């Protein structure tokens, strides 16, 4: 069964090219012109991924994300002409899975869709207890990290950071999200600690920030573990 992708976008031309691209790559496109229509199709047809334009005529895209997240975990990829990092961070914090700035290339969008689908499957299968990428394996149930076959010893905070990244592998996690996940609610101001711990984690994973092997920096937004 092919995955169905719901495109919520008011520009006809963009919808047309997205439809063509998705069709050509074996996905089933669904289309909606407004937030309202999008919501109806989401309920009726249960798409696997949503591609959402933030500038909709009847509702602000950010509000739409918040509304959907109250009852659905369907992956949402935001496509927007808004380039401000603040918009991206807000969308991600509201629950979007990824963010693409217009103009974007079709190839990039397809890659993001694939990551989103994989992530959703992992969540659904209830599995996702392991992460394997380029010699780094993480066994989340055994709390064991190996790199190129050798054990890596991490402090509790470093492990927590890595495991949060691994559970969401491929997805950008904002600074605020990471801080909250690791230190709890009230530590969102302590960006310094996040930097220092990330730096230590990278050293142990032999991950050069100048040419990262695992942890990707998204300047102004957060971190992403390669998947």
């Amino acid at each position: 069964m092919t995955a169905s992708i719901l495109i919520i976008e008011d520009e006809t031309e963009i919808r047309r090219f997205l439809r063509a691209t998705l069709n050509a790559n074996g996905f089933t496109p669904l289309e909606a012109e407004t937030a309202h229509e999008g919501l109806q199709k989401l309920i009726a047809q249960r798409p696997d991924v949503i591609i959402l334009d933030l500038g909709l005529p009847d509702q602000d895209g950010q509000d739409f994300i918040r509304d959907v997240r109250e009852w659905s975990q369907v992956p949402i990829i935001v496509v927007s002409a808004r380039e401000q990092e603040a918009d991206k961070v807000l969308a991600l914090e509201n629950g979007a899975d990824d963010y693409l700035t217009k103009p974007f290339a079709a190839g990039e969008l397809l890659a993001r869709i694939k990551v989103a689908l994989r992530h959703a499957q992992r969540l659904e299968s209830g599995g996702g207890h392991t992460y394997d990428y380029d010699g780094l394996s993480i066994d989340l149930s055994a709390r064991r990290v190996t790199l190129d076959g050798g054990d890596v010893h991490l402090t509790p905070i470093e492990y927590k950071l890595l495991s949060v990244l691994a559970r969401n592998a491929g997805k950008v996690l904002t600074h605020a999200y990471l801080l909250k996940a690791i230190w709890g609610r009230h530590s969102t101001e302590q960006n310094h600690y996040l930097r220092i711990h990330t730096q230590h984690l990278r050293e142990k994973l032999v991950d050069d920030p100048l040419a990262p092997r695992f942890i990707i920096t998204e300047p102004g937004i957060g971190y992403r573990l390669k998947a």
Partner: protein
Amino acid sequence: MNTRPDPDKLLALVTADEGRLARGSLKIFFGSSAGVGKTYAMLAEAQRLKDDRDILIGVIEHHGRAETKALTEGLPVLPLLEIDHRGVKVHEFDLDAALARKPALILMDEFAHTNAPGSRHPKRWQDVEELLDSGIDVYTTLNVQHLESVNDQVARLTGVWVRETVPDSVFDEATDIALIDIPSDELLKRLADGKVYVAEGANTRAAENFFKKTNLGHLRELALRRTAERVDAQNDQLSAALGHNEAALSEKVLVLVGPDSFSARLIRHTRRMAGRAKIPWTALYLQTDRHELLDQKARLRVEHNLRLAERMGAQVVRINGAHAATAIITYAMANGFTRVVVGNRKAPFWQRWGKSLSQKLIERGDGLEITTLSADYATSEIAESSRPRLTTPLIVPLVSYAYAALIVAGVTAAGYPLRGITDPDNLALFYLTGVVLVAARFGIGPALLASVISIPAFNFFFTVPYYTFNFYDAHYYFTFAFMLVTSLIVGSLTARLSLHARIARKSERETRLLYDLTRGLSSVRGYAAMADVASRHLGSALNAGVRLWVSEDKTLTAFPDAPVDIKESGAVQWVSINGQIAGRGTDTLPSARGLYLPLMAENKTLGVLGLTPQDDRTFTGADILVFETIASLIASALQRAQRADEAEKSRIDTENEKLRNVLLASLSHDLRTPLTVMNNSVSTLLKQRKKLPREAVDELTGLWGQMQRLQKFVTNLLKMAAITSGQLKLNFEPYLIQEIIGAAIARVEPQKERRQIRTQINGRIPLVMIDGALIEQVLLNLLENAFTHTTANGVIMISVENDADRVRVRVSDDGEGLKPGEEDQIFEKFHTHQAEKSDRAPSGTGLGLAICRGIVQAHGGMIYAKNNPAKEGKAAGASFIFTLPVAKDQAKEL
């Protein structure tokens, strides 16, 4: 009794101390007379300190004494200013040069010196105040006879009246007093040896008189006592703050001040009394009806006396009241005074009816201690204390008396036809009417005249026998007597009433003026309109030219704008900087033509109000009081206007920002959406290139390239718009710069072709405080710039090093390098490399580097470019270097 230390008072003491620290400290070398060695002691101390501190000699009078002169060796001397005063060259201390030179400590001999006319301040102690205010420490010398409060005592002791005085408050507030004391015998010996300087041309007999042994003893005693009092005063402040309240605090003295110079003695006396017993004191001026009758000189003397009291530390109060004794007693009781000091002046015999003020106070001042000081005419200066002259009642223009006579004649003429028809007694009432008229119009003097001449006129014209000064009927004795008494009483009452009416009208006029001014000011907008309102309302009422200077961003703008001469504009500048009144009628720059008042609101000088009288009159203290009220009204109006302007500006700014954001958002949406579609259409087509004719593929490839270029241009344009609009909001976060560099390198991967990007990290790099996304943009632009200027096999090096509180990032390429003089231009908007002006160039929107500069500058960093040192005579490419601020909190190692 509450003996707990009062924290507020202690704090006030501490902050007063701090204020003193910021203000520069004053040390006074204090002695009983000339010749005790004050200047010597001051110089000796300066010599001790000179290696540690920046000491400057402002003025030293060594009077040719070699040992004193020797002590100035090695101390820099400020050249004196040459002032040309009516053809005579006078040398004075150069205040502006001293302020500009700003030494740590300046030596200023002869604290009480009077400056030459035309100097900024009339007195040297005022120069010293200004030096202290600008944070310079001052050493100075002072003899006891120059202290204001003991001035008259010295005069009575020695018979020499010293005109150069220093206010006691300055003395009391000095940081340090060094008492220089030598025994009188020794001083006399030094005098005999010619070691004491006696002013040139000074009356030698006066000098001899002054330096008598008894006098010297008195002066020593005064100096010692005054020094001791000061030490006491400081201890008291501290002990009061610590809760050791002395009984003295419940006592309060009131001194009554009048328009004569005897009052000055009362003030000095009270100061000494209150000072010794540490009692707070107040100088009171009672404004009775008589005040309106005082001549200009007497009014000036009142202000003079009140200012003297203020300088000696008194509170100054003016109250209105018709009955002196009642008003004074009511005020004293209501305000908790325990003692009233009143002068008892010897009145001329014709005024000795009734009780003197002091007698009335003693009778009615229930529970008050009344101290009476008798006028003493012994000292010449005091004898000069001309009694205040009253302008009215009697001194009115002679013509008023002529009018009085004329009115009496008129009454006679009007009554003449009635003679014989009506009883002559009725005609007496006619004259009474005439007297009332005269009293109402011309005051008491002419009314007296009218009363007096009415009697013979009545007698001459209306009593039988007519046209003689005789009369038959004896009852006319009574008629004349009643007529005289009645007309005198009615006349004086009427005169007094009309005087009251005049006073009321005057104060109503003042109130009216202020009210109109306030209303006028609040109804207009803009400084020019305000100045217009002020000059319209004040100009005619005060008979003076009115001008407003508004200071904005440290520059003064005049309304109305017309040239002023250099002296006046100097005064305006001074007022604006110092926030104090200056010009005509004041102590600062008194030779200026106009009077300049600071417009102060919330301790900020918003501007200056200038008043230039049309005639040659000087302003009195009372005038200045009114002007100060006016200035404060204008200041608050100005402040309101400025606040409104600021609110309006910020409202417009917010609106503009909103509009700009909406515009940018929709522009970016409208430009990017079609670009996305076109881009993807072309790439979809290109994927099927095998099915397309070769020409079509070529065209599509060209189209694709141009679209990439357009895309980049749009992105840059929008970024640039955000930066130049000043709306770039930086989201500062700590970053490891390597992370940003890594992200940028990954992002340019598709564009770099076969070029190599190498990195080099020198040493440990601290976290930087940056907006990560924007700095990534800087790196992207620099990398793209490097790509355009290198061959496909080029090598690009990114290196990072730490330099104190900055991190320096360098992007160097091995391209053709920069042209000479291009290093700065390339950061300008729309500057493109000369060689790149061909259509085929893949980049070169001319915005990339300008964006870099905008972003780096917004981070408080620097960006610049330079060529790499040439290798083997060949260009070795260019380097682009920028710096970033290090994060303050490095959260060290965890």
